[in-house]
């Protein structure tokens, strides 16, 4: 039951973004310091320890872009919305949700732009493919560029010796 109220709190929290930092920090605090005994008997499979929660929360906050600040991640940004979203991340970690689920939740609300690590898709695969192809080309190119000329030279030298 507590679990549900937590989720509802998250929803209302979102609609009342103007309430400012108060609710955020309460949530943040509860996420960081409260022992979430009730989460254990809930249906959610995963339960994170406090350190796990902190590390994962910071990690997720680092991979998401603050909707307000100019090119800063949620972790570094000090805008109000960033603190609220950080609170939201910890709330969802309390619920035992996975990193992917939390990031998906954020993407649904704020669009692809919030993700600093672009999702692999037909639009973005070039980002990884181009560097890999270039590295392979460089290695293969060097091999073919250096080897044949050498052989040719060796042949020339050999014939000279004869």
């Amino acid at each position: 039951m507590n679990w549900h109220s937590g989720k509802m709190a998250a929803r209302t929290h979102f609609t009342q973004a103007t309430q400012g930092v108060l609710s955020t920090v309460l949530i943040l605090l509860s996420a960081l310091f409260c022992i979430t005994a009730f989460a254990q008997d809930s249906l959610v499979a995963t339960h994170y320890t406090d350190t796990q929660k902190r590390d994962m929360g910071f990690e997720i906050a680092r991979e998401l872009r603050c909707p307000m600040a100019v090119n800063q991640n949620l972790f570094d940004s000090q805008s109000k919305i960033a603190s609220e979203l950080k609170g939201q991340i910890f709330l969802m970690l309390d619920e035992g949700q996975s990193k992917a689920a939390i990031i998906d939740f954020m993407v649904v609300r704020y669009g692809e732009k919030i993700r600093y690590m672009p999702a692999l898709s037909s639009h973005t695969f070039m980002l990884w493919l181009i560097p890999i192809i270039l590295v392979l080309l460089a290695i293969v190119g060097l091999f073919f560029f250096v080897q044949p000329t050498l052989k040719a030279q060796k042949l020339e030298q050999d014939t000279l010796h004869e």
Partner: protein
Amino acid sequence: MIPEIGLILLIISSTLSLILSTVTIIGIKLDSEYLLSYTKPLTTLMCLTLVCSILSLAYCFLVDDFSVAYVANNSNTQLATLYKVAAVWGSHEGSMLFWVVAIAVWAAFIINRAPGTKQHFHHKLVAVAALLIFGFCLFLLFTSSPFTRLLPDIPIEGRDLNPILQDIGLIIHPPLLFLGYVGLTICFAGAVAALLSGGLSQQYARYLQPWAVLAWVFLTGGNAFGSWWAYNELGWGGWWFWDPVENASFIPWLVSTAMVHSILLTAKRGILGSSSIFLAILAFSLSLLGSFLVRSGVVQSVHAFASDPTRGVSILILLIVFSGSAMALFAQRTSIKAAPITFSLWSKESLILLGNMLLVIAAISVLLGTCYPLMFEVITGQTISVGAPYFNSIFIPLTALICLLMGLAPLQNWRHSTKMQQPLILMAACMLMALTTTWMTKESFSVWLLLGLFSSLWIISATGLALVQRAAIKNDENSTDNGSSSLRFYGMCFAHIGVAISVLGATLVSNFETEELLRMGPGQGKTLSGYSFIYDETQAVETGSYSAIQAQIRVMDSQNQFVTYLYPQRQTFKTNGMEMSAAGIHSGLLGDLYVSMGQKLTNNPGLNDNEYLIRISYKPLVNWIWLGALFMMISGVVIVFASKKSIARIHSPTTQREYCNELA
């Protein structure tokens, strides 16, 4: 009156630069010593007029002449004198002027110390540099003149210099970076001059070498200092964020690193001249492209200052004209079958060549990631972000590959392959050490940590092995190598160890940083990594330019001994009401204690309303990142002096004869 003099001087120098290049080019064509004798005085004159021009701008800042738009926008009567001087390059127009002036000074220095040769390499270089100066001057005069007046409504008080820039960083970081770009400009001029003289011969490469290394030293310093500045001042604890503005200066650094290696290789062995030329052209083009990205405002950045879309187009035109013509010349003058390959696959040459290619690929990847959101938006209309996690996923493996080559190359012979036994054993040992360390220290296995640890361990041990081998060779036979070449070798080793130190620092701070984000008020405390942080009190601070609240945080170590006080601040600037946070940092060789102060947590009924969101962290070895850069810079300077010596040797009559014999 003074600003008009500055403007006229700028116009005069642009005319002089055109005359200088025309006279020199015609002089070379006609082989007229008489015409060429004008090159030196004309360059000196152009340099003097440009220096006087920037001095008159500095004078306008010092006397608070707010009728000049640039001064009114970037200065204020309240501003400290030192910052008034630094404000000259604090924004777009002035920094472009600084760039042009520095090209002229550097060119004048070169032509006045040039040895008289038949090929007129230095004259050609100065002629190309003068054309570049002409282009930049036109750009300044027509789109961004720093001397534009605000008449007749002269403001009584200037807008302030951007508060973020009011820091010691502004005095050092931009000049270093611009000097690096200027060095790349000179290398570009040198590369074009070499193309006009039929390719980069060993001798031209020897002329270019000190300037290339110097450009690289400046760029290294500019990047490292910029990162240090952001870490200390921006108050978000990052030392590198892969922000577009950071990338804009990092990409030219990567390519210039490749360029330096290539030019040193050409100077030493006389091979791969065209790859050196190509890299020099590429490095300069990328520095212009970086300026375009930063100054046009097409990218979103935390460090954005002075962006204006109208200038972007002019920079793009400059880029197309300069790089386009140079590339066209390169395509015309260089044939693919230029030189026979005189080295085998496992020789030092191929490893350096591969390393250079990887550096350029790294630069291209960073450029791709930086520009991808722009292209994506243009093509699909949707917005995406490409940020730090992506860049790390590409850049760390590439760096590891480059580090592998960095350790391997000094152990290889020139031309032929060496026995690979020792290096392979060493490599395996490093890998084993890195693996065990990774397993022991982290719960979950981290590939990034493994790669970083291996890279730094491998570079340090392999460089050590190379030094030992070299010493052994020296003791064996009364070595034939001279002082300057062994000085260069030690410089190279020192620079590589610098890279290892930076990599180690970056790896450890990324993987072992511990941090907490929490609310704190007077009397509260928190323990982190064996240190206790105790919030003593909140204080109010008043300075000339801002008022701030700061937290006094006492730090005790595990034995409850007092370590230091930290004072993170939230500053509000008086002139424009901008809010900033400045971190409190206690630096040590082994790690930094870092505290930054967030928002005040008010409207908190029932709770103490004097609490702030505080972020505390312990950053192990973070200073090693910049220590490594310092190593690189010092070794660069050593190499510059070593190559100066070797140039002096070339031009002494006896060695010149030997050199000719060697060539024949």
